[in-house]
Each structure stands twice: as C-alpha cells, then as structure tokens.
C-alpha cells in the first residue's frame, strides 16, 4: 500500500491559503461534548443558555478551534502534518446554524526546522470575525514508499 502525504516543507509557499467551511449543527456540539466530556450547560442546555447574556446556546470554543486541524491535516499541508504550537482567540460566539469559514495562511517557512508559521481567521455568514489565531505547524516528511 502506497502512502500519500501532504505538502513537504519545500513545497509550501508563503501566502498560500486553504479554507474549511461548514454550518454548525446541534449534533456537532453534542458529539463534541460527548467525546471530550465537556458538558458545560452553556452549549448543550437551552433553558440554561436562555438565562445567559447569549440568550441561546453557543458552541464550545475548542470545537471551532478543532476545525483548524481539518485544514492542516487534510489540505494545507495535508496528510502527515502535525502542529507544534497554536494560539486562538474566540472573538464572537458561534450559534447553532451559523456557517463558519476558517482560512489558514502560511506566513513563514523554516526549511531547517521543517516547520511553517501560519495564521488563522474564521468568519461567520455575516462576515464577522469569530476567531483569530496563529501557530507553528510541522509539514510531513517523505516516507520510504511515498507517492506524491
């Protein structure tokens, strides 16, 4: 079986971007709560959420942040990538039914370290910025029997 990997460090370009967008559903939040154990009532309980400043349930910040790995692991750089550091800021709440689009841009490449710096910006359907971030990723290194 041949293994396919994403872009190696020498194939990345500064300024290159990739995107991931989805409509956030109730099931995303419930499944995230289940798998992480984060059953904070704010994202999962309508009656609780109604009495908060948000008036309705909001998504776990870490759920929104987790979608960044969809870009890194599948698109840019892709298969075989890992993350070294990441920081995110949740600038606005995300509600059920919101469509979020996350954009990731490569801002610097360090061939010697086999790392690349990236920034992240996520918007909702009203083009409001809901999350910003940055980090350092490790692109895949060639495997023995790679087919690119």
């Amino acid at each position, binding site marked *: 079986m041949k293994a396919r990997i994403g872009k190696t460090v020498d194939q990345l370009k500064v300024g290159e971007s990739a995107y991931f967008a989805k409509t956030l559903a109730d099931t995303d939040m419930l499944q995230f709560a289940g798998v992480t154990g984060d059953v904070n009532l704010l994202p999962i309980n309508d009656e609780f959420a109604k009495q*908060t400043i948000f008036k309705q349930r909001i998504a776990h910040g870490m759920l929104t942040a987790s979608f960044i790995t969809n870009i890194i692991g599948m698109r840019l750089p892709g298969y075989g990538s890992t993350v070294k550091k990441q920081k995110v800021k949740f600038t606005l709440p995300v509600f059920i039914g919101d469509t979020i689009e996350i954009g990731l841009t490569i801002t610097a490449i360090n061939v010697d370290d086999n790392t690349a710096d990236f920034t992240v910006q996520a918007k909702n359907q009203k083009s409001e910025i809901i999350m910003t971030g940055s980090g350092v990723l490790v692109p895949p290194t060639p495997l023995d029997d790679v087919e690119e």
Partner: protein
Amino acid sequence: MDYSIESKLGKTISEIRIGDTASFGKTFTEADVYQFTGIVGNFNPTHLNKEFASKTPSGKRTVPQMLVAGLVSKILGTQYPGNGTVHIAQELDFIEPVFMGDTIEATVEVTKIDGKEKRVWFDLKCVNQESKLVLTGESEIIPPFMINEEKV
C-alpha cells in the same frame, strides 16, 4: 418553567482564587480518536492509518492534538469554574505525541484574575502515564455570571 440557572452556575469571579487548581485525566482509546476525527472531519492518516503511521517519525497512530487539548475545555466547562464558563482564548504547546492507550492527566491553575473586565487566566499542563509533559498552554476565560443579577 421554573428554571433558574443560579444554582447550576459554576464558580463566579468572586469565588475564584489565584493558585486554585483542577485536574482531569483519562485514557485515550481508538474510540475517542475515531469519534473525534469524524466530528471534526480531519481524516489525517497519522490518526487513522496504522500502515501510514508506521512510516512516520512517531511510528504509530497518534491521538489528535485538539482532542487532547479538549481536556482543558472539559475542566474549565464542567469542573472549574464550571457551567457557564466562556472560553476567550487558548494557547497550546504540543510537546510530545499522545498515543492510543496513553492516560493523560490535565491540570489547570489560576494565574491571573481581572475583576474589572471579569477575565481569568489559567496555566495548563498535561502529563502522560510516565509523568512526561505532553502539552502545556494558557487559557483565558470569562467565568460564569447571571445577566440581571450578577452573582458577584
């Protein structure tokens, strides 16, 4: 419906002290990894494909880093401060890979409180069963509060 969140709220800002800690540990299994990759839609073979993973530097399938980082969300959202906590920012430094079968203990510690802006900062440390540090970080949150009658 006579539902009041007051008794359900986690710790409000006046109940939070610098130096307070909270921990949670769990063993990460294949089930966790497969569910999480499904929810997020991240089918990176480093997490899901044994043959691929055997040819990478880690040698075996790794637990998604954001799933491990989910431990901080669990602690802040359900233990300390608990229900009603709003996550504002998160820094993560991934130090070592985590593998299926590893037991990771996450601990948060209150490092800073801004009573005026109602913000609290935590340090995060995650260690594996060999006491090896796998993940560190910093969290910024808004602790739980009630809209009308702020339980401060």
